[in-house]
């Protein structure tokens, strides 16, 4: 794939490849992500480095990734040079973390044009490799990211200790440095008030449940990210197997919750989904949160065969496009509420009937 124009515009013009539509349980398990934290041996971590030192790290990782050929078609985003909207745009595509959006000098995102592999340079650690895929498929992702990590390691030595494993800036990531997560749409469990129990149970199993944009974010759009909490003392395969089992259980619980609602409270559920659709179809002012919540409920409605002519692909497209930065890219204007909310409602109405 040849990229001939501005990287941000290039990404904007194509749908996100990691949102599921055809995979098994696509209406619940939206996407999978694995990230590996690595630091170059014997160099200070980014938190303790000045601009010049971070630029040096960036140059080394730039050269290392080039020599190891781990990207097919690499797009580069220097966070410092990007506008706040462009940074938020990358966050909304889940390519960067919220912390990375502060845009320090030397912080750079490398992403393959297919958006299935990326590296954040100078985030909390020197190197954060990330692999993405639609649906729940952590095992395949691990094989892929591990292969790329080994190739990069041929070019750059990584900080490692026999006892503590890969050394990271935050002790919560030492050992394997792996964070494997699956993004789940759980409106059934949320509206039947079971999420608190689920979060508690996940904690007991050594898992963390986070919101739509990861660490410290809210569960907007009934979307939750389930990931491993512990990184030391278990192999990557053991961690992934444990998460996959927990994900299977979560999906089963969500299906049960939907079934119970559909059988025991049919009118309530139909009304809830119908009203969500009506809001999307007829609102003239709609906030980001209201739009994403309604879209997730309609996605559940598609699963329950309530809509003949709506596809998951269309809902996924809207789920991405209705976010603030994507919307601003779409209308080519930097607006705030209520003007932005008016434009959002307009876009959703237009796309829903197209």
């Amino acid at each position, binding site marked *: 794939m040849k990229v001939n124009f501005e990287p941000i515009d290039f990404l904007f013009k194509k749908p996100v490849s990691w949102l599921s539509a055809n995979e098994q349980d696509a209406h619940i398990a939206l996407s999978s992500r694995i990230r590996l934290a690595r630091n170059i041996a014997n160099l200070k971590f980014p938190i303790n480095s000045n601009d010049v030192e971070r630029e040096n790290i960036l140059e080394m990782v730039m050269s290392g990734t080039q020599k190891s050929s781990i990207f097919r078609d690499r797009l580069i985003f220097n966070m410092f040079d990007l506008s706040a909207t462009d940074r938020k745009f990358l966050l909304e595509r889940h390519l960067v973390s919220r912390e990375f959006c502060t845009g320090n000098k030397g912080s750079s995102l490398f992403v393959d044009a297919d958006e299935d592999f990326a590296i954040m340079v100078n985030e909390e650690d020197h190197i954060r490799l990330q692999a993405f895929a639609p649906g729940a498929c952590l095992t395949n992702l691990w094989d892929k990211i591990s292969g790329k990590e080994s190739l990069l390691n041929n070019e750059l030595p990584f900080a490692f200790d026999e006892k503590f*494993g890969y050394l990271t800036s935050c002790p919560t990531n030492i050992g394997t440095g792996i964070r494997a997560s699956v993004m789940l749409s759980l409106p059934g469990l949320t509206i039947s008030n079971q999420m608190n129990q689920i979060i508690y149970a996940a904690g007991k199993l050594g898992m963390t449940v986070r919101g739509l944009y990861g660490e410290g974010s809210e569960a907007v759009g009934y979307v939750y990210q389930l990931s491993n909490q512990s990184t030391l*003392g278990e192999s990557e395969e053991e961690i992934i197997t444990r998460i996959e089992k927990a994900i299977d259980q979560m999906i089963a619980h969500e299906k049960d919750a939907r079934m119970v609602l559909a059988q025991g409270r049919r009118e309530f559920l139909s009304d809830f989904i119908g009203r969500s659709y009506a809001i999307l179809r007829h609102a003239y002012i709609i906030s980001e949160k209201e739009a994403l919540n309604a879209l997730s409920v309609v996605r559940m409605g598609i699963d329950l065969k309530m809509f003949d002519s709506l596809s998951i692909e269309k809902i996924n497209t809207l789920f991405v496009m209705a976010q603030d930065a994507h919307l601003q890219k779409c209308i080519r204007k930097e607006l705030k509420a209520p003007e932005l909310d008016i434009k959002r409602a307009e876009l959703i109405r237009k796309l829903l009937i197209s």
Partner: protein
Amino acid sequence: MQCNICNKNEATIHIQEVINGAKKSLHICQGCADNKGLNVSGLNGVNLAELFKSVHNTLAPNQLSIKKPQDTNITIQPDLLICSSCLWDSEKLKKTGRLGCSECYKAFLGILEYSIPNLHRGFSHVGKKPNSAPHGKNEAMVDLFRLQMKLDKLVQSENYEEAALIRDKIKDLKLSIV
């Protein structure tokens, strides 16, 4: 604990450094700190690595005199642990929850051994290990680290001529690494 210098008074300042995995501790009393120019509440722009070195030298047979540092706002607190590789300290660790470099894992081992069991399901690493580093790359990284620290010091002391030379060395070294 007695002061390591006068061996009489109670030590109130505790400094720890780790060099190549070897841990060295120094415990001194306020009086000896004042005598050696280590005014704990007013260390001006002082390079703490140099300070460690100086303090250790005072314990060696060929004692060196320590000049009282000027114009500084760095404060050494009693019981503060400092990583001698990158100068990150235990206060910053407590404040941010982060470490400054890989050597910090040795410098703050006492704190980490206490907290890590609460964070993870195991105590030691299982899983993937790095490829054996290509010959000389690890050593080159150590050189790079040292040169960067040196460059910092030269820039701070406005010695730009020498800083430019070091900057060129860093550039060459980076090219040789990747």
